[in-house]
């Protein structure tokens, strides 16, 4: 093995945590899931062939997240969506900043309300910029299924946004 485990995994630790965050119930759960994924990844590392480390690691995170969800069956998913509190743009005036925070929090909540298969597909495409093929590999779904899940996720999210804007 030419590269160390840490050198291979570290560049994708944020992506792994972000994915775990969207698939689990809160920060503590996401951290547990990634920790568990790191333990597993190290076990599989001797068999890792060195190509597409991101897909390899994200798949392990995703499977660890699903395993943790099946342990906690019955608890609603993502009841604490990633929050938008911490990242106000300093250039905004207070009112604009508030609106912006609210918009982000709403968006996060709507994503969290998507079915888990739709949610993970959307996250991997829009936040991690992965190709259909990579998403198919990570989620174990055929590419056609990835396309239709992505379509359903987008339609459903866009519909909620439009409805809210009409109400406002």
């Amino acid at each position, binding site marked *: 093995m030419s590269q160390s485990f840490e050198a291979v995994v570290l560049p994708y630790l944020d992506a792994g945590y972000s994915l775990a965050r969207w698939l689990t119930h809160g920060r503590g759960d996401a951290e547990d899931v990634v920790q568990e994924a790191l333990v597993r990844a190290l076990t599989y590392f001797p068999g890792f062939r060195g190509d597409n480390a991101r897909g390899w690691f994200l798949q392990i995170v995703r499977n660890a997240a699903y395993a943790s969800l099946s*342990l906690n069956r019955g608890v609603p998913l993502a009841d604490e969506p990633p929050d938008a509190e911490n990242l106000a743009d300093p250039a905004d005036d207070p009112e604009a900043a508030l609106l912006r925070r609210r918009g982000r929090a709403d*968006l996060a909540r709507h994503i969290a309300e998507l079915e888990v298969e739709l949610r993970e597909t959307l996250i991997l495409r829009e936040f991690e910029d992965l190709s259909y093929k990579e998403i198919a590999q990570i989620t174990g779904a055929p590419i056609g299924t990835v396309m239709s899940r*992505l379509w359903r996720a987008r339609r459903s999210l866009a519909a909620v946004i439009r409805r809210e804007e009409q109400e406002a």
Partner: protein
Amino acid sequence: MIEERCPMLLLVQADIDGELDAGRAADLIRHRADCPDCQAAYAEIMMLRDRLRAADLREKAPQSLRRFLAQQSAAPIAPRVSRWRPQIGLFAGMALAAGLALAIYRPPMPDPLGLVVDAHVRSLQAGHLEDVISTDRHTVKPWFEGKLDFAPPVKDLAAENFPLTGGRLDVMQGRPVAALIYRGGTHPINLLVWPAKESGDTEIQAESKNGFNTLHWRLNGMEFWAVSDLEPGQLKNFGRLWRAAP
């Protein structure tokens, strides 16, 4: 709201996602010029993309995970996960996910010789040799209960100058295995034990790798691998005594 009438809608999406080759993308642009459904879909996906990018809802991994990764790389060893709830469920989940990951990636079957030498090297780092420290086999043996789905035979060879010093849980090819630690003089010996897939007892076979000496035998449905930097003759003596001990 877009009606799903046009059969090209998924291609509109694929185009935005950069999945179409240049020829098909050009065809699609021509089609879109005359198709209100596809125009609406295009506008909607782009609106959504702008919102998502502007919101940037990703979260960075906490420092504690970076530290965990660094520690784990320095001294990788058996799973040590603090906040997971049921232990049995944890192993079931691990087995499930291990199965899923292996089913898709199919890493080449690593040879046990390399794996046991790696396990030995890992165990020597940063005080990870023993999880239970005891020279009493009646303490070591029950310690494995509930941690493994098999009961490793534990023997003490103190009278033969190979005292048992403790036990540890290790992981080989995704399954937990028992590690018994003995000492030959100042040299630690790892004896790794797991249920055999093949039947039939075998004689002790000695091999070396990376300066470590190993023994392998199969007995009563268990695989045994002893690894140490002890010189080959003495290690072989350990293996013979262990096999013969009651």
